């Protein structure tokens, strides 16, 4: 039986990056929202809510 859409168990991916420049600044947080949306489109998610602070940005996604 396949009941698509009700799968609970998530898939989790963590990617870490580094830079030769010792001063990274805001790094990946510089990515514009449209670029993130394009990647999320491939995954089949969209942003439904967002919150950030001085350390990082968080997005609640659909699905």
């Amino acid at each position: 039986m396949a009941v698509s859409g009700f799968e609970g168990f998530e898939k989790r991916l963590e990617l870490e990056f580094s830079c030769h420049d010792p001063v990274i600044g805001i790094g990946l947080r510089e990515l514009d929202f449209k670029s993130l949306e394009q990647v999320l489109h491939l995954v089949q998610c969209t942003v439904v809510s967002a919150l950030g602070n001085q350390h990082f940005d968080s997005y609640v996604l659909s699905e």
Partner: protein
Amino acid sequence: SSLFVYPTKIIIKTCGTTQLLKSVQPFIHLARTLNLHIVALRYTRGSFIFPQAQPHPHTSFHEEVVYLEDNIPANLCYRKASVIPSKLTSHSWHVFSAAVVEYSDDILYTVEVCMTDLDQTLARKFFRHPNDGKNGDSAGREMTEATGINRINPNAQICDFAFDPCGYSMNAIDGDRYSTIHVTPEDGFSYASFECVGSVYDGDIADMVKKAVKVFCPGTVSVATTSASNDMCLRMKNAVEQLGMKCRSWSMDEFPAAGTVVFQTFTTRR
């Protein structure tokens, strides 16, 4: 589902039939435009409830590993894929990790809690009332308060969302730490997850796990910790057992790029 973007780290966690691994190449490419290069990757998941419903590249763990191997740079050479078993045949922990250098002790560790067979009365709190006049944000806020999710970490700022007709996701941020909860409350395949990051200097992470599990009173719980000390894993075990659950299995594996992953499963004593 959730996405966290740090200056040098991206964490993305998605459920349903999402095609998460398709984000690997685009994220690597986007980072490169900022002169950032990938140095480590970790992919984890539990056992799908409906594996037949998963699309490419998620039809099997083997397919996921092959896809990852094909889509990461060769210099991430410390690689390992493993399925960590448990005594519950439907619960095993799938891990793929890769890095440019071997893992060395980190002060941070990750805790991933998966819960199934949620208490039906508690799960009902994650259903919207028809024509409630609320939007996803306001309904989510109400669920956060009604269920006590806001008391798991009272210091955190919460971003929550209630889906229609049911389901819930929240991200909590506390300084440089995140935690997240996702809920699929439908009876028969109810599921909730809690994830957080702890450091060796934190004393209350096991207590947070306990509070999160208590929100759902599930029939089955699994706790996967990555890079945590044995002592911390034991504290997690004690915290869940204090809720009346019995530890059914404790398995571990070593990953050259991620350190030790411990996978514990629990069921109710009923």
